[in-house]
C-alpha cells in the first residue's frame, strides 16, 4: 500500500514503511521528479512561480506563497495516499517541512481523507522507541492483511 508519512522527509518513517513491505510516499520523490523532469531552470528545487498557483487548489491566494508552493509538492502525495502515519510532535524538521502552516494543512487533509491512519508521538527514550516501532509494525501488518482481504 502507498503510505503517506509525516514528516514527509523522515528517514526513520520512510525506512520502516519500506522495511515492512509498503511504499512510503515521501516528498523526496516529488522533489526528485521536479529536479529530473527538465533542465534545472529554477534552482535549487526547480519550483517555479507557477507552483504556488498550482497550490491554489489547497489554499486561497491570501495564504503565503511558500505554503502554496509546498502544497503543490504535497498535493499529489496526499491524493495517492492509501494509508498514513503521522508523528504528532516531530523533532524540528526543516526545508520542505519547515513551515508550520503548511504542516497543519497537510495533517488536516490527511485526516479528512478517512484512510487508515496511525498517529503517534515522537520517541525520546529507548522504551518509547520500542513502542513506536511496535505500533508502526502492527499498523503496517494490518494494512497488509487488509490488502490481502481485498484481493
Amino acid at each position, binding site marked *: 500500500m502507498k503510505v503517506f508519512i509525516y514528516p514527509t522527509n523522515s528517514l526513520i518513517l520512510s525506512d520502516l514503511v519500506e522495511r515492512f513491505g509498503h511504499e512510503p510516499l515521501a516528498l523526496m520523490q516529488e522533489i526528485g521528479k521536479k529536479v529530473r523532469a527538465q533542465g534545472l531552470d529554477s534552482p*535549487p*528545487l526547480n519550483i517555479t512561480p507557477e507552483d*504556488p498557483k498550482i497550490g491554489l487548489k489547497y489554499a486561497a491566494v*491570501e495564504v*503565503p*506563497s511558500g505554503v502554496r508552493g509546498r502544497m503543490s509538492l504535497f498535493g499529489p502525495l496526499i491524493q495517492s495516499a492509501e494509508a498514513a502515519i503521522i508523528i504528532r510532535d516531530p523533532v524540528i524538521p526543516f526545508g520542505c517541512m*519547515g513551515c*508550520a*502552516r503548511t504542516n497543519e494543512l497537510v495533517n488536516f487533509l490527511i485526516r479528512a481523507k478517512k484512510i487508515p491512519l496511525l498517529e503517534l508521538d515522537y520517541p525520546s527514550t529507548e522504551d518509547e522507541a520500542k513502542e513506536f516501532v511496535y505500533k508502526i509494525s502492527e499498523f503496517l501488518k494490518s494494512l497488509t492483511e487488509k490488502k490481502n482481504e481485498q484481493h
Partner: protein
Amino acid sequence: MSNTENPVRIAQLSCGAEYSGIQKEIDSAVEQVNAVMVYPEIDILDIEAIEEDFGLKVASPDLKLMMARAKAIVTGKVHVDAVFVATCFRCAEAALVRSEVRRYIHEKTGIPVISYSFTERTTAGTLLTRMEALTTTARRKSLLAREKQSGLTAGIDSGSTTTKAVIMRDNEIIGKGWVPTVKVLDSAEEAYNDALKEAGIKREEVQALGTTGYGRFLVGEHFKADLIQEEITVNSKGAVYLADMQKGVATVLDIGGMDNKAISVLDGIPGMFTMGGICAGASGRFLEMTAKRLGVSITELGALAIKGRAQNIKMNSYCIVFGIQSLVNSLAAGGNPEDVAAAACHSVAEQLFEQQLQEVDVKEPVIMVGGTSLIEGLPRAVEELLKVKVIVPDNAQYIGAVGAALLVSGFISR
C-alpha cells in the same frame, strides 16, 4: 557597479523563497550588483537552543533556522558584509521573526540588513533596488555614517514629476531649484542653475556633486557626478538629517508624483521598505487633479483641506478616475471645496496605508518628505489614520537633493 571590487558577501536568511519559486530571482538580482549569497553555517544544537536564546518561540522550524543563522552572524561564526532577510508576504509569524532578526543583527553588529516579504510574483527587477541599496550600504558604510555636510557640494534629484537641486555649504542649504521635469537633462540644468544662482556661486566652485531619482544615471553622467545613488538610501539619509533625528528608528514616508515609498530606517540606514507605482490614486497626481477640479493651485490645496472634514464627502473609490468622479459629484451636490480637499487627502493616505504599509512597521518618529508633504492636509490625514504624530521637516520637498549633497560631501578629498 564596478566589477573590480570584491563581491559583497550577503547572508540570506529566508523562509519560503525556494518554495515560492523565487530563489532564482534572488540569485539573479544579487549577481547584478556584484554580490554573492552565503548561508551561515550552524549546527543542530544552535537551532535547538535558539528559541531560549532569542526569546521568541515560533512554530515554523525554518524560522528557527533563520534565528540560528542570525546568531551565527552576530557571534562572528561567519563573516558577511550584509544580510538579506526575506519571508513570505502575509505570514504573520514570519513578519515578527523578520523584524526582530533585522533589529538584532543591526543592534549587535551594525551590519546592514534589508528585509523583504515576497510572493511568487516577486522578480529580480523588484529585488534589484533592494540589493543595490544593501550593497551600497555595505560598500559605503563610512559615507553613510556622515551626519554633517561639509565643504561646498550640490545634489540633484531627478524625479518623475519634478527636478530638485540644492547647493550646500558647511551644513547649510544656500541655494535651491525646483522645476517640473520636462526633458530630464534640460530640467536638471534649469534646477541646478536656479540653485547656483540663489547661492551666488559658479559651477566650477562646487567641490562634489551627487545625483539621485529616476534620472540619476543620465543626469549623473551629464554632470560627471561623484555619486550616483538610488533614492531609498539617499532619502533615508536626507529625511533623518533634515528632521535632525539621525539616531535610532524612524519611518520615512515619501508620496511622490508618480509613486510612493515607505522606508523603515535605523540610524539613517534603510532596512525594510516598499515602493509602489502601480496606482495613481496613491500618488501626488491624485491631489494635483483634485486641485485642478477645485480651481486652486496645488500649493493651496493643503490649507484648504485642513479646514474641511473628509467624513462629509462620500467617496466610492480611491481610483484616480472613479475617485475624482466621486469628488466632482460631491461638488455638484453642494459639497464644499474644503471637505473635498480633505477627502482627497484622506483617500491618498488610505491608499498609502493599504498598499505601502502592509510590510513596514510604523515606528515613530514618522517623517513625511517629498513635495506632497507640504500639502498640509496629507500629513494630517496620515496622522489620523496611523494614530501617530507626523513630522514634516523644513525643505522636505528637497529631500533627495539634500541627501545627495550631504552624502557626496564625503567624496571631497581633504
